[in-house]
C-alpha cells in the first residue's frame, strides 16, 4: 500500500524531472537580469553609499504613469542597499519618464544629464538648488 502511494507521488515528479524545459523560470528573473545590466553603470557614476532621488513622470492630472512607475520595484531591488526613493534628498536623480517615439527628452535647467541608462531613464546630477 505504501509502495503504491509512494509511486503515485514519485511518478509526476519523475515526469517533471525528465522534461528538460521544466520548470519555466519565474517571469521576473529575466526582467531583473535586464535591469541589473541597465543600472550597472550607476556604480561608477554615483559614489558608493550616496542615495538616489527617484523622479517619475506624471500625467496632466498629476498621476504617476503606471508603466514607468511599476518598474520602481525592480530598480530598487537591483540597487539595494543603495537608498532610492521619491522623497530622498540627493544631488543624483534617476529620472524615469514615458518614452514615446519622436518625443523629446525632458530638459533640465539646474541639472546635467550624466547618462541615458535606457530609453526613458536618465541619470541626472543637480547643479543648483
Amino acid at each position, binding site marked *: 500500500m*505504501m*509502495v503504491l*502511494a*509512494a509511486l503515485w*507521488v*514519485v511518478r*509526476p*515528479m*519523475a515526469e*517533471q*524531472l525528465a522534461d528538460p524545459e*521544466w*520548470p*519555466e*523560470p*519565474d517571469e*521576473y*528573473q529575466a526582467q*531583473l*537580469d535586464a535591469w*541589473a545590466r541597465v543600472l550597472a553603470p550607476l556604480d561608477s557614476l554615483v559614489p558608493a*553609499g550616496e542615495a538616489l532621488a*527617484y523622479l517619475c513622470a506624471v500625467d496632466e492630472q498629476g498621476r504617476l504613469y503606471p508603466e514607468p512607475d511599476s518598474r*520602481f*520595484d525592480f530598480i*530598487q*531591488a537591483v540597487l*539595494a*542597499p543603495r*537608498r*532610492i*526613493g*521619491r*522623497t*530622498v534628498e540627493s544631488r543624483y536623480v534617476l529620472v524615469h519618464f514615458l518614452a514615446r517615439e519622436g518625443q523629446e527628452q525632458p530638459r533640465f535647467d539646474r541639472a546635467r544629464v550624466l547618462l541615458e541608462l535606457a530609453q526613458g531613464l536618465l541619470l541626472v546630477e543637480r547643479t543648483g538648488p
Partner: protein
Amino acid sequence: MTLAGLLLGLGLAYAAGGLFAWRLWPGREKPALLLAALAWPAGLALTSSAYFLWMSISGGRAALYPWLEVVALAAASWFVRGARRVSGDRLVLPRRPKSAVEATALVVLALVVACALLVVLRYDAASPRGYWDAWARINLKARFLHAGGPEWTWIFRGDGVPHPDYPLLLECSVARLAHWSGWSGGVELLPARVLSVLGWLACSTTLLALVGHLRSPFLAAAAGIVLLCNRTDISWAATQYADFALATYFTWSAGLLVLATRGESSAEPWWPLVAFCVGSAAWCKDEGLAFAALVSAAALVAWISRGGRRWQAATAWAAGLLLGGGSVLVLKLGYSWRSSVFGARESSIWQDLTDPARYRVMGDYLLGHVRFEMAGWTLLPIAVALLLLPRERELRRSWLPCLLCAGTGLVFFLVMITTREDLDWHVGTTIERLVLHLWPTATLGAMVVLKSRE
C-alpha cells in the same frame, strides 16, 4: 563568496540551536533525533534574533556580528558542557526498525524524499533570484541588514520599502549568512537560496522526527509521503519565502504541546520550549503573530481555569516567547508601527463578516483549487480517519495538533474575510500559502490520533 564560510555560518547556527534545544529539553534523557531536527529552526530563530538585536544596539555595525557570534557560542557551549557534567543528561538514540515492513517503509520514504529534493533543486536553479516577495521585499531588506551602517533602518522608513513592519527572521538570517560567506552583493544570492531549500528540508524532518518519536517509524514514513503529496507545497520550497520556516515552527509548537501534555507529570517544564517555537513563528511572519496570539490566549485560559501555579507557568511561557520572538517587540514598537491589518477601511469589519458574497469568493477558490496539486484528495481520507479512527479516550490530548490546526485555520479564514485589501487578490495570493502553513501540522495531527496496530 566562499563555500567554506557559508558552511561555517550554517554549522554555527545549527550548533547554537542544538545547544539551546539540549539545555531547554525537559528530562535527563534527550531524544537525539528530535534534538537534531529542532536544532536548525531553533538556531535560525536565535541567530536571526541576535543579529537583529546587535544591529539595534550597535547602530548597524553588522561586520562585527560574526565575531560576536563565535564568542557567544563558545561561552554557551562551555556553559552547557559544565551543566551536563553535573546533571548527567544523556542522548537517547532512535530505535532501529522492528520489522521488515518498517525498514521497507523508511527506504521507500528515503527514495521519495530524494526525488522531491531533486524537484526542489530544479525549481531553485530555474529561478535563482526567488519569487516576487523574495527579491522585492525579503532579500531587499536583507541587503540593508547586511550592509549595516547608520542607514540600515531604511527598511522601516524607506518610501518604497514594502511592509516595513514585517517580522525579520528570514531577512536577518540571509544577512547573517551573507556575512559568513563573504557575499558582496553580487547577482547570485546563494545564502537566500540555501536557506530556502533548508527551510523545506527542516519542515519535512520536523514532521518525520515528531511522528517517529510519538508513534512509529512506519507512521513517520506515511506522514512523509502524505506531506509530499502536496505538490503545490514543493513548488514553494525554492521561492526564498519564509512560509516553510513558519510551517516548521507551527509543527514544532503542536508536537511539543503533545509531548508536554501526554504524560501524568507536570507540563510546566515544557512551556519555555513550546513558547520559544510559538515566539519564533511570530518573529517569522505576520501569520505567526496571529498564531502566537491564539496559542498564548488559549494557554492563558487553561491556566486561569485550572488555578494552581499559574504565575510560574505564565512566566515560563513569557520567557520562551521572548527568547523566540523578543526582537519582534523592538521591531514593531521601536521602528515601525504601520499595520496592514488595522487601518482605514471602506467597510466595517462587521459588514465584511456578514457579507455572504465574501464567503462565496473564499468557497469558490477553495473548491476550485484544493484538488490533487494542493493535496485535496488526501484531505478526505485524513478527515475520515479522524472521524472514524480516534485513539483511546485517555489519549485525548493527542488531538491538540488537530485543534491547533483548526483554530489557526479559522483565524486565517476570518482575517481573510475581513481583509481591507482586495479580497479576490488576497485569496488568490494567500490561500495556497495558508494550506502550506497548516499542512504539516494537520498531517502530524492525523498521524498522532490515528489508531494503529503497533
